[in-house]
């Protein structure tokens, strides 16, 4: 670029326009670089699509209610884990003898909680989170109470549905 100034050229009139060679070289370089990037993209894109999880139908709200068990199930135990769609739900007979249903997914980092009969509370084994029987977080890291579900008794059946 820094050619010894040629006395007959008066390029400085045209500000700093690059010479033809440079323009051509830049053009070709851009052409090839973008062509190469497109080529790479043609291989990356299918791989990306192949690995991308498929668009699933949202099943979170698909299940509205389930028959979670029989009232007789609680004759010898106070707690029972059932599946509500893809989520675990904890069925509990509380101190008043009512059957309640709580989401069994801990509000801390998503482990599944359990009822501990000896201490009469709900406990998460991962990081020691504790909830009372209403699902309220009372100790440890959980930031929020457990989700609540509705329970209805129809004859013998215990029906659990979304709150």
């Amino acid at each position, binding site marked *: 670029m820094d050619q010894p100034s040629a006395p007959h050229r008066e390029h400085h009139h045209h500000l700093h326009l690059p010479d033809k060679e440079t323009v051509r070289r830049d053009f070709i370089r851009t052409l090839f670089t973008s062509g190469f990037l497109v080529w790479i993209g043609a291989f990356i894109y*299918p*791989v990306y699509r192949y*690995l991308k999880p498929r668009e699933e139908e949202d099943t979170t709200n698909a299940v509205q209610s389930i028959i979670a068990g029989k009232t007789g199930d609680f004759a010898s135990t106070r707690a029972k884990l059932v599946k509500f769609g893809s989520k675990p739900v904890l069925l509990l007979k509380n101190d008043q003898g009512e059957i309640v249903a709580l989401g069994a997914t801990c509000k801390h980092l998503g482990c599944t909680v359990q009822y501990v009969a000896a201490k009469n509370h709900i406990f998460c084994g991962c990081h020691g989170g504790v909830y009372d029987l209403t699902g309220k977080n009372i100790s440890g890291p959980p930031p929020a109470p457990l989700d609540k579900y509705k329970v209805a008794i129809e004859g013998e059946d215990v029906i659990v549905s979304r709150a």
Partner: protein
Amino acid sequence: MSHTHDPNDPNTAFLPEAVRRRYDLGWIIEFFKHKQVPVHRHSVWYYTGGIALFLFIVQIVTGVLLMVHYNPGQAHASVQAIMSQVDFGWLIRSTHSWAANLMVLVAFIHMFSCFFMKSYKYPREMTWITGFVLLALCMAFGFSGYLLPWDQLAFFATQIGVKSSEVMPVFGGFMADMMRGGKELGVQTIERFYALHVWVLPLMFFGVLGLHVFFIQIQGLHEPDFFEKQPPEKKRYMRFFPDFAIKDVYVWLLVMNFLGLLAVMFPWELGEEADPLAPAPADIKPEWYFLAMFQLLKLFPAEVGPITGELLGMSLFGLVGLLWALVPFIDSEHAPAWRSRGAFYFGIALLAGMIVFTIWGYYS
């Protein structure tokens, strides 16, 4: 190493200072700078090894991708899902199948080109032998991978392959049982072949490939006789880095495009799910690289004296394979001219035989 670590080595000037101060890498660059590739009328064959390596890399990438959606417990259904439901699954699988076949083909071409240039001779015997092992591993890859989709062809090809190893004396039955995981082919066979295909063979392949490439790096490329005999001023060389390396990359790009074209234009098929109770389809044939052996085996009578035709055939293949692997020691450094010529004719006969029997097998 006797040299001292010089962070200002001009060879490593392109690296960040933080790296240069810590790691002594200049000697690697220095090494590659001095590496040369002979330039002569047969230089084109030097690319075949690199192409085979590139295809192997394609196999690793597409193979790992297939593992994401493949399930050996539901082999056929999962491959069917890959072909029809997973986005671009057909492309990944077709690329894997095509690259596998091309890799075997290129490995054969690479091997025969090295054979006829007599690259196997002293001091490169071990490069030849590791190359031979790599080809055998390639074929084991092909054989084990062929079963994994669990369609009719895969089932019977594996049945035949395992059965023919059963004729070997002493170890045959044991080997067949170990491959099948029982007396019959089933899901447990798929699981075994899968473990073999995605772990055991790749680990072995990496090790042997590492040796193979290492030997080539420390000994340099072989110069064929006609080139070596030229006076030094007539010999032309090309720098390995960057001149040969950049050409290698161009060839790889071409191969990649060709592969993409094959996979798109001729996607690999998936047959009906294997059914052990269904009769074998007529004219069942193995993959093309087993076709020559398959066709030759058909020519043997059922019984030859006290042994079966299969055993005789398999022993013949074993003997030819052994001779082939040991050719550097037969046509050795100071071997008399007749042995060197003999090796050459042996190679011609083997190549011609393989081509003829493969074509015959294909059309019969």
